[in-house]
């Protein structure tokens, strides 16, 4: 029985209960191709959704599919085709990275010979060099995160779930992990779902987001679309705060919006052409130094907060 294949995974009118508590009620959602961010406050139902998609929870009502497989009856097959990078630290004791990842591959059904060579390939991709022959228990946080990713990729999943992938990483490690995620989710034949509380991470890697709150989907869509603002609004960064600049802008026909330190939001009338020139002219007139400007885009964090606060 194949369900309506919408996106790479989806749920329809899903109801999930834990004992007497109803976590999700008549809940529907589609996970599109590419890289999707899954956001929401703690307790919003992300965990329950993830568990359901992995086939661990039988829904009390509704249905769900992952890669065309039913979550209620084909859980094992689903886990064959997906990879999960859990949030918590986890490993198999007494192994080095190669044995661990190869073992994970065998658990996923790969023959031993394939699992071994694939483990090396995937570890290379995740940036683990000679360290792969050392016992996993000696690894730093960054390395542990990498092998968690490697064990999720080894069996060639078509859908990857990443739960807080940059947890505990220092800035360099975070950079590298985000680059890896961006790389693997574009053009490599698999889709990725990233669940994280760090919205700039999501901005950097994902194409679209799904925002949950209290068991409901309150926002979804491509990040660029959600972030765009209407009209001719520009965020200008000055070298220093300058009231004179504001006055010049007003004189040229614009309005000053939010001011955060040396960053000013400037709005022009809809359809104004050449607002760049206007900004520079205002700068020249007021003697302020412009250090940058770009069409106003709300940060994902602002979008999220707005959605949640309602």
């Amino acid at each position, binding site marked *: 029985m194949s369900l309506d294949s919408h996106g790479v995974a989806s749920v329809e009118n899903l109801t999930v209960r834990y004992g007497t508590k109803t976590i999700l009620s008549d809940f529907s959602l589609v996970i599109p191709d590419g890289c999707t961010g899954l956001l929401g406050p703690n*307790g919003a139902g992300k965990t329950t959704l993830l568990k359901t998609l992995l086939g661990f929870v039988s829904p009390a009502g509704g249905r769900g599919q992952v890669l065309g497989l039913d979550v209620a009856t084909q859980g094992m097959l689903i886990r064959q085709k997906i990879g999960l990078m859990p949030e918590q630290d986890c490993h198999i004791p007494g192994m080095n990275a190669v044995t661990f990842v190869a073992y994970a591959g065998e658990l996923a059904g790969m023959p031993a010979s394939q699992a071994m060579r694939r483990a090396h390939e995937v570890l290379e991709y995740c940036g683990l060099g000679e360290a792969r022959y050392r016992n996993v228990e000696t690894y730093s946080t960054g390395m542990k995160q990498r092998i968690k990713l490697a064990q999720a990729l080894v069996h060639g999943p078509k859908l990857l779930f990443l739960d807080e992938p940059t947890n505990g990483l220092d800035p360099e490690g975070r950079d590298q992990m985000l680059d890896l995620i961006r790389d693997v989710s574009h053009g490599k034949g698999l889709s990725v779902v990233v669940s994280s509380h760090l919205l700039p991470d999501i901005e950097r890697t994902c194409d679209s987001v799904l925002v949950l709150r209290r068991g409901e989907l309150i926002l979804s869509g491509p990040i660029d679309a959600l972030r765009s603002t209407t009209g001719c609004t520009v965020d200008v960064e000055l070298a220093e705060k300058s009231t004179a600049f504001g006055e010049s802008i007003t004189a040229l026909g614009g309005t000053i919006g939010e001011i955060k330190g040396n960053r000013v939001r400037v709005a022009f009338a809809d359809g104004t052409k050449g607002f760049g020139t206007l900004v520079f002219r205002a700068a020249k007139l007021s003697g302020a130094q412009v250090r940058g400007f770009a069409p106003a885009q709300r940060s994902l964090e602002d979008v*999220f907060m707005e959605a949640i606060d309602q």
Partner: protein
Amino acid sequence: MNLDNTIHFEHVSRWYGQVIGLNDVSFTIPKGLTALLGPNGAGKSTMLKLVTGQIKPTTGGIAVLGEQPFANPRVARNLGYCPEIDNFYEDMTGRQFVELMATLSGYKGEDRTKRVQNSIDRVGMSDRCDRKLGGYSKGMRQRIKVAQAIVHDPKVLVLDEPLNGLDPLGRRDMVNLYQQFAEEGMCVLISSHILYEVEQITDRILVMYKGRLLAQGGIRDIRKQIDSHPHRISLTTDNPRKLAGALLLDDTVISARMPQDNHRVVEVETAQPDKFYSNLADIILDGGFEVDVFQAPDNNLEAVFRYLVSA
């Protein structure tokens, strides 16, 4: 006891056998919010252990609130510490745990109950503090850790990765709380890897690298200092090649680059950013160029940090 609320390190070194933790580090942290940054293994945990008095320096002197902190109850009474590790007595409720910490600080009876309630309220756990710790989510555990760190009204607060596990709302609440503490006169030291957040919380940073103090001071000042490092600036316009030509005529510009993935962009490098920005307005206006986007992607803490640790 000098209640100047400062942390002061004077030529402090600490090594473990042959392994160096801190190498001749000196600085002063005044009242307010300071962020401690650095790659893993840079010496941040060593430094935090020294500040909280868990270990002694091998050489050099430390003064927290005017006294050296190792095994010093007078300092301990005025210092709050929220560690990164996540070990609790799982069978206690949140409230009981904070009460235990308050008792250890010497409070009893009515006073203790009020303090405990107060700190639980401040971290936003009033409705959930009577559940067992074993059932707490990561974010809730984090809040209780902060509650126990402030229950005794410390003058110095040390927080190690305090926003770990919190959802964006929680992060916003806690960040506001820390800023409040700083405004109330506490000396707050936060160690964090999340640079974009640190940028929003405070201007003052301390950067550790390989056991040495790499930079200290305001982010903007540090940025200005490394202005000698070429700035990259990217401009989006309809005729980037013509703009590139015009810009190259200016002697503050070192190079111009046409990226292959976006045909409306020109990227220039300048070694004298201040002068460049001043000249830019004229170049644009004189040439009649219509610029849609003008950005210096290196203008944030992440770029500063990357530059500092890779140099």
